[in-house]
């Protein structure tokens, strides 16, 4: 009997920028239908990990592998990874003045899911319903991508894209930061609707457990100095909320020394 490979499997991943190591041997496996959380302080390498999975050209992988459904993606361009099923919800999404949201969404869905998926009544219905779920007015489609958006609008727009693209793997990089409690609930609703009950998987990167109250993770991992030092169930997020991260720092290492990766987080 064949067993489906995990949606994401990272083995012994070492990576950095300009010869400065940031990730120092990450191992992570996320199965279909699972939501994992990656937690850690500023500078621990969380955003770097997200960018490397998405294929940011600035970072260099020196060792290890990243597989999506059993296929190594490290040699792929970012757009090839996107079309293969990787989606990154950015912590700070880029503004593109002059590019209208509606036009951008159609092009993006067409590029990833095919031309037919980006036109016709079915696409319009999906778009309308996703926008309604995220409390986004129709007029949003006429605005320029992330141009003049508030922090909350940017995050909701990232989740709108997630809901339309329906990727195999969603990486959500601090999607909760800058959101009030209502915003977190709205965004969480979008994440749950895109991932739960599907073949997709998600990796939620966050500092805090707030969003995890609304998107229940199957596993929680703690990243410190580019290494996963502890993994556990959802209760680990609550423990981190109470105790912080210092107790997880390996003895003999400086608790304040996560400065290199901090420039990238």
């Amino acid at each position, binding site marked *: 009997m064949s067993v489906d490979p995990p949606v994401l499997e990272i083995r012994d991943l070492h990576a950095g920028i300009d010869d400065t190591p940031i990730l120092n041997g990450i191992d992570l496996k996320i199965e279909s239908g699972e939501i994992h959380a990656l937690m850690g302080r500023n500078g621990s390498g969380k955003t770097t990990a997200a960018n490397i999975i998405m294929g940011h050209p600035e970072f260099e992988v020196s060792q290890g592998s990243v597989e999506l459904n059993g296929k190594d993606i490290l040699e792929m361009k970012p757009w090839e990874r*996107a079309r293969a099923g990787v*989606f990154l919800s950015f912590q700070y999404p880029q503004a*593109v003045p002059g590019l209208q949201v509606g036009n951008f969404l159609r092009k*993006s869905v067409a*590029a990833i899911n095919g031309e037919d998926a980006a036109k016709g009544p079915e696409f319009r219905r999906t778009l309308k319903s996703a926008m309604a779920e995220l409390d986004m007015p129709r007029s949003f489609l006429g605005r320029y991508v992330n141009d003049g958006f508030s922090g909350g609008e940017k995050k909701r727009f990232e989740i709108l894209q997630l809901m339309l693209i329906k990727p195999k793997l969603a990486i959500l990089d601090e999607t909760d930061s800058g959101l009030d409690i209502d915003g977190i609930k709205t965004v969480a609703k979008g994440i749950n609707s895109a991932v739960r009950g599907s073949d997709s998987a998600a990796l939620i990167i966050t500092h805090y457990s707030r969003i995890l109250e609304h998107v229940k993770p199957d596993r929680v991992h703690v990243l410190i100095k580019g290494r996963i030092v502890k993994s556990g169930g959802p209760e680990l997020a609550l423990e981190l909320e109470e105790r912080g991260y210092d107790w997880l720092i390996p003895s003999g290492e400086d608790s304040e020394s996560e400065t290199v990766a901090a420039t990238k987080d």
Partner: protein
Amino acid sequence: MDAASQYLSLDEPHRANHLWRYSPWRKVHPTGKVGEIPTSLASPTLTLTSLSGGVVLAGISLEKSSGANQVLHHADAVTESFLKAITTDSAFTLRVENNFIPSEPIFLDIDTGDSPCAVHLTLDVGRHCEFELITQIDGAAPWTGLLRSGRIGEGTILNDVVIGHTDAGTFLRVDNISIGRDAQVKTGTVSSGSERTKADLRYRMGEIGGHLRVLGSILASDKMHLDHHVEIHHDAPETFSRLEWHSACGGKSRTVGTGMLRIVDGAHGADASQLFQNLLLSKGAKADSIPELEVSEHNVVGCGHGTASGPVDEDQMFYLESRGFDTDQARDTLVAAFLNSTLIAMGSETMHEWLTNHLQEELADLSS
């Protein structure tokens, strides 16, 4: 003194002159022999329709006229006298009656044919009109001259776009337009044709309350050399102007954008700014932007300028690629967005849709 005599009495402009620094007059002149006034220039064919191709509406007309005796304010003597001299038999007036409010944009096609040609077009726009005008210059003439002069009447709202779309050759364009009291004018330039363009665009805010936006979407590819000089003169109080100029250069092209904002003593409450932005799409492309200010009135709301040049933003590229756009698509989309951000501000949705379709054909050339 007639225009020809005046031109012949002038010295060749020096390159130290702001206007001629990047495109010397002898390279713009039809024969390169600056002491000569060509006599064999043709007159282009002018056709006035609605944007959908319908017949011209009542209230607007295009008629033969004589522009030689018009007094132009703040004009460059060389180009003014030269263009007047070569258009004595090729002068037209676009007359727009008071309260002209058509239901769709007006389209003026200037077909250059395939011989060197020139035209003087006077805009005589009445009071309280509200309309959009697209002027397109197309054809295969090796040299084209266009002088647009005139006045926009009191309280008129006008969106005016000029598209330089000739196949090749040199295009000399001079605008000398006065903005009437409380008029609201947007004047856009879409430049995507010709090997060499020299444009000297001057707008005079000579009456109180005038409001002007000057917008440019410039696409240069191959070895094109597109040089636009924009002067805005605030000669009256409570006048407002904004200049936003976007140039995208590919291949071995060069774009130049020079600006001059002048606020005279007495133009209190003036509010003006100019911003040039350049997108460099290849190593061989070059863009120069030089905004200048001359402010003689201390009581102004604001007066500023800025310029920025650079390649396509890598972070924007990564964002689009992470959304499935391949590298070429991402780049083309960012170039289109960059040009669109000034294009969309030029007029109505109808006009924008027409301009966007027009621009699509040109974007492919930028990839080289």
